[in-house]
């Protein structure tokens, strides 16, 4: 019951004695206004080295962007500052908070710092709030933990802070529960919780990655405003250079547990001294080489498509109500064409994709695939004409089958499935097509990285030579450098096999890089359609303009060595 006894200690938080400042110790000289200074932080978990000699400074009232790909150690740096490292972690170096080294402090002393002097928000707003407590209670808890405030005072404080982050009283009473809020609103609650006691340092770990672009822009401007108003320092951890470009003053670029380049954002962006920095920039602004192989034959035609969902009945005898997820959508995809479909979450783009793939019944309109009407379901022969690649490279494969069998799955759609030898040959061809080895077919899926898995998913879609591939957020979960490679691969395959893509994404920069034409979807309808360059340079619909304005962009595209 050791864990439970400690609780009384946490309750009486404010009464706890603060550890004495480490007076006699040599403190490294800090830059003017530096409130947090990480010095030579080295970290290993069990025997695995995670961080190697990481040093960064954070000034009050400034934003420091830490940028890197997955596994670069950026989140571990944040957790080390928070004192929330996993059990087997061993850290050395110094983490100076206003001249005091907080790294060696016992957990009890770190508890007093967490939430009060250093606060943190995380990537997944949907799951980061306790579903059983009201938002008011959760914000007030931060206040009650660290101050002597009474319950009523804490609630009053929570009200103030929620107002500050844009969740005003009448619409967002303290009694609201997380499930009643959207992702963006939940992230605001988390921010409110973090800034309630005006911490000196706020760490935001991919705070907007799970959010739509317009919501992302709102949350980022909220964070910028709070930094200005409170004079706190913000460490913004992200994989997205463009996000940092827009709001940070300083940047540190991490690769494999080390900081490879750091400095003022403008300087780093202009100089790009380290090869990895250049690689990151090039990948972020990557434009695959695309040779047009376009024909005029329509391969996929969608006319006035309607998809209704039945809503849960309000009471037992209520009339059945419907939600129209796709409302009268029409478009044509021609041979060899790459068509983009953009829109925010809930706009109906994935529902549209599922309807086209014949995975869901439609309530109106028509779908023609390669000239045949497939609205009410597809024969095997027709289904051969369309393939799909989904977002999650980890969840889309049965882990118990070898790659050869996974890639060969679509063969059952053929009237005359090939024999064993021919099957292996065609799988080998498909694997080579996507840049893997024929030998890979005898391995299991867990032996491959995320990018390689996405290649296998493409091979699986490709193996029976469809004319259309639906790519539903197919590169969204990948790091920028891997994403660039997959985009190149897609462009190359499209040219070789005269493949048509329906490229669904929330990421406008990717859509711009790979598509010929774009559809913009909002509330189940296509609000604008046009050639990609035209649509991005002179958008006509108000919503398209909002989307474009909200999506962060890298400055000085010309300076990067993108083709």
């Amino acid at each position, binding site marked *: *019951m050791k864990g439970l006894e*400690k609780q009384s200690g946490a309750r009486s938080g404010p009464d706890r004695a603060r550890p004495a400042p480490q007076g006699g110790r040599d403190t490294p000289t800090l830059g003017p206004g530096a409130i947090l200074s990480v010095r030579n932080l080295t970290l290993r978990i069990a025997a695995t080295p995670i961080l190697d000699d990481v040093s960064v400074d954070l000034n009050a009232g400034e934003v420091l962007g830490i940028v890197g790909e997955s596994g670069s150690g950026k989140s571990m740096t944040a957790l080390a500052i928070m004192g929330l490292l996993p059990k087997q972690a061993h850290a050395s170096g110094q983490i100076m908070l206003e001249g005091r080294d907080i790294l060696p402090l016992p957990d009890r002393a770190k508890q007093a710092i967490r939430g*009060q002097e250093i606060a943190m928000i*995380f990537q997944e707003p949907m799951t980061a709030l306790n579903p*059983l407590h009201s938002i008011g209670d959760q914000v007030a808890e931060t206040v009650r933990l660290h101050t002597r405030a009474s319950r009523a005072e804490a609630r009053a404080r929570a009200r103030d802070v929620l107002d500050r982050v844009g969740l005003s009283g009448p619409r967002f009473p303290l009694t609201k529960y997380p499930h009643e809020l959207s992702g963006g609103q939940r992230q605001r609650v988390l921010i409110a919780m973090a800034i309630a006691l005006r911490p000196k340092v706020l760490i935001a770990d991919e705070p907007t990655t799970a959010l739509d672009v317009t919501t992302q822009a709102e949350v980022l401007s909220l964070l910028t405003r709070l930094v200005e108003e409170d004079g706190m320092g913000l460490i913004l951890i992200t994989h997205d250079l463009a996000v940092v470009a827009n709001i940070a003053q300083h940047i540190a670029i991490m690769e494999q547990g080390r900081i490879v380049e750091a400095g003022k954002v403008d300087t780093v962006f202009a100089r790009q001294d380290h090869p990895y920095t250049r690689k990151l920039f090039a990948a972020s602004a990557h434009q695959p080489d695309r040779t047009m192989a376009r024909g005029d034959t329509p391969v996929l035609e969608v006319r006035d498509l309607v998809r209704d969902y039945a809503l849960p009945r309000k009471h037992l005898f209520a009339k059945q109500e419907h939600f129209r997820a796709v409302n009268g959508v029409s478009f044509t995809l021609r041979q060899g064409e790459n068509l983009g479909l953009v829109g925010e979450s809930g706009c109906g783009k994935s529902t549209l994709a599922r309807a086209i793939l014949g995975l869901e019944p439609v309530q109106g309109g028509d779908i023609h695939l390669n000239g045949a009407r497939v609205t009410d379901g597809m024969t095997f022969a027709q289904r051969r004409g369309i393939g799909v690649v989904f977002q999650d490279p980890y969840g889309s494969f049965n882990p118990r089958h070898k790659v050869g069998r996974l890639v060969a799955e679509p063969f059952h759609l053929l009237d005359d499935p090939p024999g064993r030898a021919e099957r292996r040959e065609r799988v080998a061809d498909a694997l080579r097509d996507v840049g893997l080895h024929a030998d890979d077919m005898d391995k299991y899926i867990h032996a491959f990285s995320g990018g390689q898995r996405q290649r296998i998913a493409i091979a699986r879609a490709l193996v029976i030579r469809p004319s259309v591939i639906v790519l539903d957020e197919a590169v969204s979960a990948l790091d920028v450098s891997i994403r660039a490679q997959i985009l190149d691969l897609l462009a190359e395959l499209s040219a070789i096999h005269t493949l048509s893509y329906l490229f669904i994404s929330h990421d406008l920069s990717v859509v711009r890089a790979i598509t010929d034409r774009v559809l913009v979807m909002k509330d189940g309808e296509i609000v604008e359609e046009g050639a990609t360059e035209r649509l991005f340079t002179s958008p006509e619909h108000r919503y398209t303009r909002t989307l474009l304005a909200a999506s962060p962009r890298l400055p000085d595209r010309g300076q990067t060595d993108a083709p």
Partner: protein
Amino acid sequence: MLRYLLIRLVSLTATLIAASVVIFLVMAVIPGNPAVLILGINAQEDTLAALRAELGLNRTLPEQYLAWIGGLVQGDFGTSYTYKVPVAELILDRIWISLPLTLYALALSTAIAFPVGIIAATARGGVLDFGIMGATQLGIAIPNFWFAMMLVFVFAVTLGWFGAGGFPGWDDPLAAIKALTLPAIALALPQASILARVMRSALLETLDEDYIRTARAKGLSRGGMLWRHALRNAMIPVLTILGLQFSFLLAGAIIIENVFFLPGLGRLVFQGITQRDLIVVQSTVMLLVFAVIVVTFLVDLAYALVDPRLRR
């Protein structure tokens, strides 16, 4: 919340009606004529006919069903064929043993399982966790009648702290509780083992959630986080198992009742079955079904209290 309650109430009533029909039909089709059983196989045909008429067995099935249900609603559970006394009286005598015994065992099981499960979860992968998992495995595996006999041997026969069986009645509450203690422990051991494991796994799952990390980032201690954020979220599977255990203990204590010579509901049903006293079986089973359904309803209510998402 009101809507949730109403839906639950409607489903509760529907389940009760369906269960009563099933119980009635099963009793009607199983072989064994009560009249023959009462009078013996050599009885005269006209005596049998007279007894059937007296018992109401010559009416059509729907008539018999309605008569039975009508009686139940008014508290008339019928008259036992063998004891010739109202079934309600038989049940009432025994429920004063079975219900307290169930609650006693459940209280013990909860009191053991909660702390043990929590300790195992917080010491995940450690020696303590390993030991607890082993002990609970044993607790589930040991047959409870054997454990009951060991309890009798050690605490009644050797040490003489408790009586070896029987029930003195509730005139002396202390003596009654004392008489129920060994049976309650015997019943609670396997239940506590199961519950502790459920508690552990529910808590471990909760501890991996993102909001637990948020709670730590706020400055909560491990204990505070456990108490305020993890436990309540882990309660839903635990409540489900608790509800099931209540139902099981109420009627499933028959072996333990036999070991300790306690005249409980389990024994009543058992005797009813062996003596073909169908009306006793039918009414008692219906009462148990009613208890199970009410407990399920209460568990549903508890869910709604714990989880605001269900209150819509």
